């Protein structure tokens, strides 16, 4: 109990800290449209690493009277950490191959678009620091496997701890390292160094990771972490057998081995029976199931909300090329070099590469874990090629040319030129992608006139700032969850759902409100105590990422929780099309989202022509009963509606006062507003309660 309380309070503090930093960083925070998958799966709320890092840097700088604003710290955190990532990539590649490859790898990761997308200034994101932690942990792990020194392993554990505190992707480490150990065992590469490294890492790493409040006891409970435990046990058994092998004769050892195996089988069998009997079998989910393949299927089947995020779609070849360019072609060569000259640490990088490729294929977002290893292996490939073809110049004093007899200077220069050309094109591509795709903030849209002057569409901030300045401080805003963080950060208002909401039914309720007709939606909104509804509408300027285009996902998510009230098929035409014009389904044309998007849109010229969907809208005569337009931004991109309060019911009030006894009256009044959270109505009901309590003894006294 006490522990729980402690963790809860920690959570609350960290959450407040998060709020503060989100608020501070909000100026440049990008439009982030994702749910943290890992926090959904592991039912977590937030990882403190990012905020703690930024806060610590800010604190230290201010201690030295370098009075940097926390916002600036947040903005520049990602670039600084990407610098550290380059350094740790260099170190890791140096351990794997040589210094030259290390330098190349550092150069690659410095400019590769796949990583720049997360490390541009202003992307205050978990991933920004997590990739550094990932690379550095791997470097220390390779170092500790190489040396078998507890010193390096402890370093590795600390780095792992940092990773755990920063990003849910730490499960990648805690599965890859055991996999490495397991592969080493299978390849007969067991050594005392591996034993020391893994035993220390597992124990210390486990204890440290459990100190992170949002991870808690998961490392010993959930199946994501079971692989590590299993490999740990296996390694102990293997080491024990090795020990016995030295002490016993062959005959004795064999008997003991079989005895041990059968005993172990018995124990496992009994445990499974016991757990099934006590109904705890689900805690022992099969270990060998690959983590993210589970995630993959889990996401696809159970959570439409994850499937609805574009970052969680399977990666296309185009995006591989877009994010990695030439590296995607050369990295298999590097992998081949590594496998050809295999040793302990190259086993690791091979496993890293294979698993990362698999994950990146599952969803676009995990491209991020693939990028570092691609850089490393491509660097290995390029470095080997250069070493081979530019060899003469570097090895001046070693004249004997053994294998390179046949290489003429022409071939050498041609190959070198070709490789340099490739690298040059890579650099050009990276610059282009970075400037075009990853450099512009997505809250501010820009369009260009015919004469080349830039037109800035600042509608998002216009509307958010209006909310911030001209609504009640405690106003609650209902919007689709994509805009949750933005509303919290820029408008400083409470939202019903945001980017970190893992309560699916809550999101579904918002989806239901959006996809119901006005009166049904009003009931939901009143029960959720909504003051304002915010939607994004791109029909005037042709912005395609608006709510109507996302609307089917809202319907699907709502249908998942409320299959009786919402059916996806109702929103399609009989031909199975999603249309907003006259041919569209009547359910769609009268649902709240449609009405809010197109309110008074029929009056503009050309009459009601939606530029995003290239159609003239079907319902031009939209009237609201319970809502009122509160604000629409300059280009109609953001529309905010105010939810009207209930109209007065004087007669009812009068009747109640004269007929119903006082006790009942108050209890009824209280139950009218059971879901209210705002100060006013709470204090109202509380006042009523207290008056009844103070009144009752009074009457008794009389």
């Amino acid at each position: 109990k006490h522990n729980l309380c402690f963790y809860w309070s920690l959570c609350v503090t960290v959450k407040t800290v998060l709020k503060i930093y989100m608020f501070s960083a909000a100026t440049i925070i990008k439009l982030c449209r994702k749910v943290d998958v890992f926090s959904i799966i592991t039912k977590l709320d937030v990882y403190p690493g990012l905020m703690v890092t930024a806060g610590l840097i800010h604190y230290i700088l201010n201690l030295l009277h370098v009075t940097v604003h926390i916002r600036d710290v947040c903005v520049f955190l990602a670039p600084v950490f990407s610098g550290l990532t380059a350094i740790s990539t260099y170190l890791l590649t140096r351990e794997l191959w040589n210094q030259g490859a290390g330098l190349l790898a550092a150069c690659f990761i410095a400019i590769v678009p796949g990583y720049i997308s997360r490390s541009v200034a202003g992307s205050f994101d978990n991933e920004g620091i997590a990739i550094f932690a990932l690379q550095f942990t791997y470097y220390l792990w390779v170092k500790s496997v190489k040396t078998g020194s507890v010193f390096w392993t402890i370093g590795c554990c600390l780095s792992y701890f940092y990773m755990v505190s920063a990003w849910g992707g730490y499960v990648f480490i805690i599965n890859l390292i055991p996999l490495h150990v397991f592969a080493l065992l299978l390849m007969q590469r067991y050594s005392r160094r591996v034993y020391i490294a893994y035993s220390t890492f597992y124990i210390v790493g486990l204890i440290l990771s459990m100190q992170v409040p949002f991870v808690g006891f998961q490392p010993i409970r959930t199946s994501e972490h079971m692989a590590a435990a299993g490999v740990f046990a296996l390694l102990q058994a293997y080491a024990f057998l090795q020990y016995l092998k030295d002490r016993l004769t062959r005959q004795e050892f064999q008997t003991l081995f079989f005895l041990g195996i059968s005993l172990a089988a018995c124990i496992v069998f009994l445990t499974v029976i016991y757990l099934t009997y006590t109904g705890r079998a689900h805690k022992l989910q099969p270990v060998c199931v690959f983590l993210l393949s589970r995630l993959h299927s889990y996401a696809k089947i159970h959570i439409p909300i994850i499937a609805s995020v574009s970052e969680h779609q399977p990666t296309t070849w185009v995006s591989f090329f877009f994010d990695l360019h030439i590296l995607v072609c050369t990295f298999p060569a590097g992998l081949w070099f590594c496998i050809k000259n295999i040793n302990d640490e190259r086993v690791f990088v091979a496993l890293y590469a294979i698993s990362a490729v698999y994950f990146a294929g599952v969803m676009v977002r995990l491209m991020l874990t693939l990028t570092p290893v691609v850089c490393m292996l491509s660097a290995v490939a390029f470095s080997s090629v250069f070493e081979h073809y530019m060899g003469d110049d570097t090895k001046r004093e070693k004249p004997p040319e053994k294998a390179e007899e046949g290489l003429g200077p022409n071939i050498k220069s041609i190959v070198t030129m070709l490789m340099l050309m490739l690298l040059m094109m890579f650099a050009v591509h990276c610059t282009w992608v970075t400037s075009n795709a990853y450099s512009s903030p997505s809250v501010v849209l820009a369009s260009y006139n015919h004469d080349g002057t830039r037109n800035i569409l600042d509608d998002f901030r216009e509307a958010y700032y209006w909310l911030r300045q001209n609504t009640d401080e405690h106003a609650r805003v209902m919007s689709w969850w994509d805009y949750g963080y933005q509303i919290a950060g820029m408008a400083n208002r409470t939202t019903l759902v945001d980017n970190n909401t893992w309560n699916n039914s809550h999101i579904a309720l918002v989806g239901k409100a959006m996809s119901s007709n006005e009166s049904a939606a009003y009931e939901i909104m009143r029960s959720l105590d909504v003051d304002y509804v915010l939607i994004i509408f791109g029909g005037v300027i042709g912005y395609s990422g608006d709510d109507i285009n996302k609307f089917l996902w809202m319907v699907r998510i709502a249908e998942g929780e409320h299959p009786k009230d919402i059916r996806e098929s109702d929103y399609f035409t009989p031909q199975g099309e999603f249309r907003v014009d006259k041919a569209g389904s009547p359910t769609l044309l009268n649902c709240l989202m449609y009405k809010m998007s197109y309110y008074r849109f029929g009056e503009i010229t050309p009459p009601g022509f939606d530029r995003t969907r290239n159609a003239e809208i079907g319902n031009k005569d939209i009237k609201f009963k319970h809502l009122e337009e509160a604000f629409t931004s300059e280009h109609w991109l953001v529309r905010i509606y105010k939810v009207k309060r209930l109209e007065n019911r004087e007669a009812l009030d009068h009747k109640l006062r004269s007929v119903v006894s006082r006790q009942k009256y108050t209890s009824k009044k209280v139950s009218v507003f059971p879901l209210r959270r705002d100060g006013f109505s709470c204090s109202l009901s509380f006042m009523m309660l207290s008056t009844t309590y103070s009144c009752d003894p009074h009457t008794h006294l009389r």
Partner: protein
Amino acid sequence: MTRRSAFVAVCLLFVAALSSEVSADGLVNEDVKRTVDLSTHLAKITAEIVLSNHGQSSVQSFILAVDADLAPHMAYIGASVKGDEEEHGTLELQQTSIQGQRGEFYKVLLPSTLAAGAQLKVKTEMMFSHVLKPFPTQITQAERQLVVFQGNHYLYSPYPTRSQTTRVRLASKTVESYTKLGNPSKTDEIIEYGPFRDVAPFSEDALKIHYENNTPFLTITSITRTIEVSHWGNIAVEETIDLRHTGAILKGPFSRYDYQRQSDSGISSVKSFKTILPASAQDVYYRDEIGNISTSHLQVLDDSVEVEVRPRFPLFGGWKTHYIIGYNLPSYEYLYTLGEQYALKMRLVDHVYDDQVIDYMTVKIILPEGAKNIHVDTPYKIDRMPNQLHYTYLDTFGRPVLVATKNNLVEQHIQDFVVHYTFNKILMLQEPLLVVGAFYILFFTVIIYVRLDFAITKDPAAEVRMKVASITEQVLTLVNRRLGLYRHMDEVVNRYKQSRDTGALNSGRKTLEADHRTLTSEISSLQARLKTEGSDLAEKVGEIQKLDGQVKELVCRSCSEAERLVGGKVKKETYIESEKSLTGRRQELISRIDSLLDAL
């Protein structure tokens, strides 16, 4: 003379005291032309008064009265003498009170005494904020804004008035109603009252005008103006402004469609306004909590910089916004210095928009770290707060911050203040030295870390390697010196061949012998040390020694050959031949030694 003047002064003082006590006596407002300007959201009441002294004695001051209802809203009051030539002397005002009368009273000190029977033309100016009350208080987007002004038909004065007129200037032709005292005439935006004859002192008669006024009812509810002075040539000014539309509150929905399509929709709303900054303002920024506000334009004019400030959204009645505007100024225009004395002369409050109203202002002046003996001269009375300390980059003991506040300011308050302080110029070096010191410490630490061995365990192999390296270094220098000896000997021999001085040759040979012996012994001792360290380099050094012995021999032989040549014991040809072979062998040996040295 002095006694007499003192007497006159005492008399005058007495007379002044007397006249203030019996203030109403004597002075009469001969002719008053009053203008009530209601064309903006401010009420600007000016009056041209012809004041005449009907009393027996001359007066030095007169009393200016403010209506009781308007007095709490008064932002500014001023009076000036209007001479025959257009010279306006602003007069000094002191607040006083008159018993038994409502309102506020100010004693205006005249520049020269007004003798009995004399006349004086005075112009007074009063500014009132928030006296135009929107009525109705809530309007929809399509409606126009109507306001009510309540004032006085007469000049509120402690003196009787002979004749006066009141002219009211409105913002538009549309007037709902106005009081009709004395059958006023109305043409377009102007209503003329009067003339009224022989008005008694302190007479009041309610003036009420209800008219349409769509001028921007903008109010700065609070402004914080921060001026940060740097002695490195820059003054940074930043203003944090809270703005509110204090006109009739918007009722019902805000429709963007109507606002965009119909020109008269939301006519009382504020879309943008102009802020005038000093001409030397640079690096102007305009932003709020969520970043740069992209809807602004900057125009650099000859005598000013104009910023067209457009809030993120149009301001309707009751809506508010908040923004920050800041810029840099070169300090040579505002900071004056004489030795260690400094004076900063700047505007206490600057222009934000035309006809501005500031409800609450805070001024913060951040002086450089180490500024002392600070004192401030302000053009009008402001409330000083206790000084604060401000820490920014590289500060150690903080910069002094002067803080002052004032309520209810208008355009007339845009005036200069002066801050005097002393500053020791040596302190300018403090921050650069701090940086230099920090880097010095950093590099020093790195040097220490690199040079010293902090390992807690000894690494014998590395130690031996280092020792061997140092010994080989010594061997190298010694061997090179020994080779140098031979070259020197060659020179000696050559000189001998020309001069035929046997003594010089012998002494040269002797020094060679001696030096060579010491060097060789030193090298062999080093060789022995190498051997004890267990390095295989010892053998190489031994080889060098052996080769060197041969070189030495060759040198000696060439020396003796030369002797024989000089002695005439050999022919020149044979000598040259033998010399050639000797030098050839020597070259070979020396190159072998060199290769060995390289391998060391």
